[in-house]
């Protein structure tokens, strides 16, 4: 690395990063603190940062308060994974076509994809409901997977297309001259080179799928056993009281599998996001 910043600038940069991180991470920290407190503490005034009766009790109690909690966490990961796999199956050939082929309405259709992205799922809930009902998909996993895939394909195409465009065209021409078909070239040349890009896009899709499932779950699904975690968390809201500490514990536990995956993929993510920035 080049030493391009003065000491003072570095201090400034780090200060900015710290402020930003605090802003992002503070809610998680507070979630964690809340999950440790006994319930009575939560409403105590004045606010007490630390007390001796903090414990991990909520982390074991939550499984009893909401017996299906494990199932909900599984559902969340399952739905998000299924959405990711299906989305990628559609996105890879589509993004390749947008990156390399010429066809009518290419730019127009790309713009429409971007336009679709601007609608949140919420605007389309009622039409979607009717579509899913007439297809008989309500109250199944598909009710949460199909709309998820539909809303994530455009983002996926946009992200992956720009990545594929950076792969030198001459590599594909060389393969073509040697007699390789498009599909063979895609499989043996393009996709291996695009692996970091695929991971970046896959991760972005997974996060998107994880975040959007709540809306689809509460509208299109009544089956308790199929609910993902965000919807399942509602069960911590009882008739009498809300077990906030357990809810926070459950929410944090639910994020855990995703966090673990991220830690593993982190080096690809960083490589993927900067790939092509430097001429090699």
């Amino acid at each position, binding site marked *: 690395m080049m030493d391009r910043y003065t000491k003072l600038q570095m201090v400034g940069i780090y200060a900015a990063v710290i402020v930003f991180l605090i802003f992002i991470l503070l809610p998680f920290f507070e979630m964690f603190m809340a999950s440790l407190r006994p319930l009575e503490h939560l409403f105590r005034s004045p606010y007490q940062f630390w007390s001796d009766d903090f414990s991990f009790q909520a982390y074991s109690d939550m499984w009893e308060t909401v017996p299906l909690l494990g199932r909900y966490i599984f559902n969340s990961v399952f739905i998000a994974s299924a959405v990711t796999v299906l989305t990628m199956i559609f996105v890879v050939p589509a993004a390749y076509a947008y990156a390399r082929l010429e066809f009518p309405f290419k730019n127009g259709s790309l713009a429409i994809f971007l336009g679709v992205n601007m609608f949140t799922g919420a605007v389309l809930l009622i039409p979607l409901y009717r579509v899913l009902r007439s297809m008989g998909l309500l109250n199944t996993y598909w009710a949460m997977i199909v709309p998820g895939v539909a809303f994530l394909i455009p983002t996926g195409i946009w992200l992956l297309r720009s990545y594929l465009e950076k792969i030198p065209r001459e*590599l594909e021409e060389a393969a*073509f*001259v040697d*007699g390789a078909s498009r599909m*063979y070239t895609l499989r043996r040349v393009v996709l291996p080179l695009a692996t970091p890009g695929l991971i970046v896009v896959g991760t972005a899709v997974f996060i998107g799928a994880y975040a959007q499932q709540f809306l689809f779950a509460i509208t299109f699904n009544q089956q308790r056993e199929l609910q993902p975690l965000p919807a399942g968390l509602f069960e911590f809201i009882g008739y009498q009281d809300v077990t906030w500490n357990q809810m926070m514990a459950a929410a944090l536990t639910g994020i855990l599998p995703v966090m673990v995956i991220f830690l593993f993929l982190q080096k690809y993510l960083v490589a993927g996001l900067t790939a092509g920035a430097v001429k090699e």
Partner: protein
Amino acid sequence: MATLSLNAITKSFGAAKVLHDISLAIKDKEFVVFVGPSGCGKSTLLRIIAGLEEATSGSVVIGGEDVSAAPPVERGISMVFQSYALYPHLSVYENIAFPLRVQKMGKAEMDARIQRAADILQLKDKLQLKPGQLSGGQRQRVAIGRSIVRNPKVFLFDEPLSNLDAALRGDMRVELSQLHRNLDATMVYVTHDQIEAMTMADRIVVLNGGRVEQFGTPMELYHHPKTKFVASFIGQPNMNLIPGTVLGVDPTGVKISMNGGHEMVLPVDSSTVSAGDKVEVGIRPEHVDIGTEGLEISVNVLERLGGVSITYGTIGDGTRFCASLPGDAAVKEGEPLTLSVAPEACHVFDGSGDVLRRNSAPEIID
């Protein structure tokens, strides 16, 4: 191995016409170089031969067969790209194996071909490395290896050496010429470097603005350039061009008054010019000698290269003139110099840049 002919090829990208009516007949086992300035359409022409680009009109015939509509792999060609186009995630072995794997060739035969290519290109101990671990010259060899294993009828090269440094480029030039001899293949080679063209080619195609200016052996182009463009493109340092006026013509030659005042009778075909026409006289820097009578130039810059001394100067009216003199020539910067020129060594170009054929010129040796 095969002949290659291009018949009336034209190519337009939208409204831009890039190639104009190009017809060439390349012989079996010939090493032909396409040379010309940047943007003249060399790569486009090569890509049309390869089948990567479709000609707007005209046909490509390889080995007597019209392949204009065939995909590259059915044309019996292989191509080496300027950027090498190696697959960075595959080993050298797999890179060379790629075209054979596409063909689903049997393992034993494939291995034999790769080993042979590695032998020819001295890559035996590099087969397990990735392209990223190789030097530029080695990468170039891998790219060539990949094109050899398919036993193509015609090899196509698009500026394969332009990413290499000067010394390596010299070595690779020799290696490529040797390869051509070993493989006994027809090769078409694109470059914008006239030295590569002169040293490697059996015949050179000079392209300019999408047209063939001339197609001939290096010595033909040197001694009998058909146009001013070819004359100034071939030869290093470039040919000097001095504007002049025709004073009179007779069957043996043309009398010309050159800018700067010098007058000469040049033995060239005089049938197409008459007195008063504007012409240009082309004199190669290596065809002048220090003398007592002739062109008066003042030397601005002197480069002593050891074997030769190159002087850059001007003649009377400011036209630039470069001369290549013996290494020990008694010349000084800032001093006037008289150069004698043999009339037989001069070229004359008419107003449109076409040459007036020289009556006597050196025998062309191949």
